[in-house]
């Protein structure tokens, strides 16, 4: 069971599952958006067709070395995040690489991908990319603060920096952390709105305004890489939220139900909201989410 081959197999299987689930969720979000707008909408598997088409396109764009590395960086970051996050309780099926202090490592590695992409986008020399990168980094400064505050509150409350330990705590006490430390949950969910970059916070991609921002010079196979890394990263983030606040999942069905319930929050909020400007987005994140993050830390210290 503990052999290296078993771990490699687990990594490959969890990557495939993450890819399929993430792509299906993105397709479902397109469908639900269409239904909200009183349209029929594309089929839920439309994203797979798009991915196949993008992969079969030729890619004859060269702006320099970093431009080719950018999508690779973001893919590496997504896969590393996925490897750290335990998919199921008790390490059943998908044994991932957990260790003490992985919550702190996660905070760093989740920022690594966008930074690599920023380097790659910078080299294309496209002004839209440059504006998109500056907007993305500003937004990241915005939502990282409540997100880090929520995680620090959890770490202080339970005196651990390991995701597995936090899941253990929930399994032993029988209540989800969502209820036992509610302020951290609220701060983390409000930060998630920015992390997913759906509609009021889609200031990075900003279709029709920035021409898709940092990815505007990436077509064909690069866009395929970015799309699949987005799907994997979405699945990893949703699983992390389920692990931290909703007690993890015992099997895949429960995991899908819980992750989709979490996924509906940024998606439905996005469907009915117009886009913020950059300074409005940052002001939003440094307002109520940070307030709830502070409350969470006070709650962790005094209770």
């Amino acid at each position, binding site marked *: 069971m503990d052999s290296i081959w078993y771990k490699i197999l687990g990594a490959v299987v969890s990557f495939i599952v993450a890819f399929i689930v993430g792509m299906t969720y993105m397709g479902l979000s*397109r469908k639900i958006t*269409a239904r909200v*707008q*009183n*349209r*029929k*909408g*594309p089929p839920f598997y*439309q994203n797979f*067709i*798009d991915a*196949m*088409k993008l992969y*079969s*396109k*030729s*890619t*004859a*764009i060269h702006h320099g070395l970093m431009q080719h590395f950018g999508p690779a960086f973001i893919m590496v970051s997504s896969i590393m995040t996925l490897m750290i996050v335990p998919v199921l309780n008790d390490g059943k099926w998908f044994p991932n690489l957990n260790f003490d202090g992985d919550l702190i490592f996660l905070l760093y590695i989740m920022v690594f991908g966008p930074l690599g992409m920023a380097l790659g986008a910078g080299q294309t020399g496209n002004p*839209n990319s440059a504006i998109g990168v500056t907007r993305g980094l500003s937004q990241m400064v915005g939502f990282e603060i409540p997100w880090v505050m929520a995680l620090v509150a959890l770490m202080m409350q339970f005196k651990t920096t390991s995701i597995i330990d936090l899941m253990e705590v929930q399994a032993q006490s029988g209540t989800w952390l969502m209820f036992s430390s509610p302020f951290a949950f609220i701060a983390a969910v409000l930060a998630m709105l920015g992390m997913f970059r759906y509609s009021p916070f889609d200031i990075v991609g900003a*279709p*029709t305004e*920035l*021409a*898709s921002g940092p*990815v*505007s*010079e*990436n*077509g*064909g196979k690069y*866009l395929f890489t970015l799309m699949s890394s987005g799907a994997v990263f979405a699945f990893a983030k949703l699983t992390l939220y389920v692990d931290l606040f909703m007690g993890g999942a015992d099997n895949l069905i429960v995991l899908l139900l819980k992750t989709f319930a979490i996924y509906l929050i940024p998606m439905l909020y996005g469907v009915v909201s117009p886009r913020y400007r950059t300074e409005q987005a940052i002001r939003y994140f440094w307002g109520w989410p940070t307030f709830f993050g502070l409350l969470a830390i006070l709650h962790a210290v005094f209770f």
Partner: protein
Amino acid sequence: MINDKNSQKIVDIIQNWARKQSIWVLAYGTGCGAIEIPPTMTSRYDAERLGVRGAATPRQADVLLITGYLTTKTLKRVIRVYEQMQDPKYVIGFGSCTINGGMYYDSYNTIKVLDKYLPVDVYINGCMPRPESVLSGFGKLQELIADGKANGAQKYKDNLDWYRANQKRIIPNWVMPDYNW
């Protein structure tokens, strides 16, 4: 096995199916025809259910939609955009102006026949073409892609000298990068 003709045929069928089901459109709003694109995309006609979707930049797009008349000034930009797009790429000529000049048949600063400057795969007739005819034009393009007959880009590469000569006749100060694919 990999270079076998029959296996390549199977790959082509699958790829053409994917290309047909997922058409990302760069709606280059050259003329008045651009006003028919929003109704085609939004709730009433909903082109997204056919997989037709707007693309933000030429790098990501499959179809270049020339919506209406092309002035000699915009022709240069359209050529630049078309050559930045990645293979396979298609062009849809939209409205009568792209076919024979339409109501601008005697104008001094619009081009009359788009096919002399860019390889057009599908024409949509009308002035204006309604969203229904736009959708039927996309349907025609899907048929052509599925049959592997939408090879305008290949035609452009093969007859590049002829197209370049026509383009340079319209554009006197030609300062554009040379693409050699």
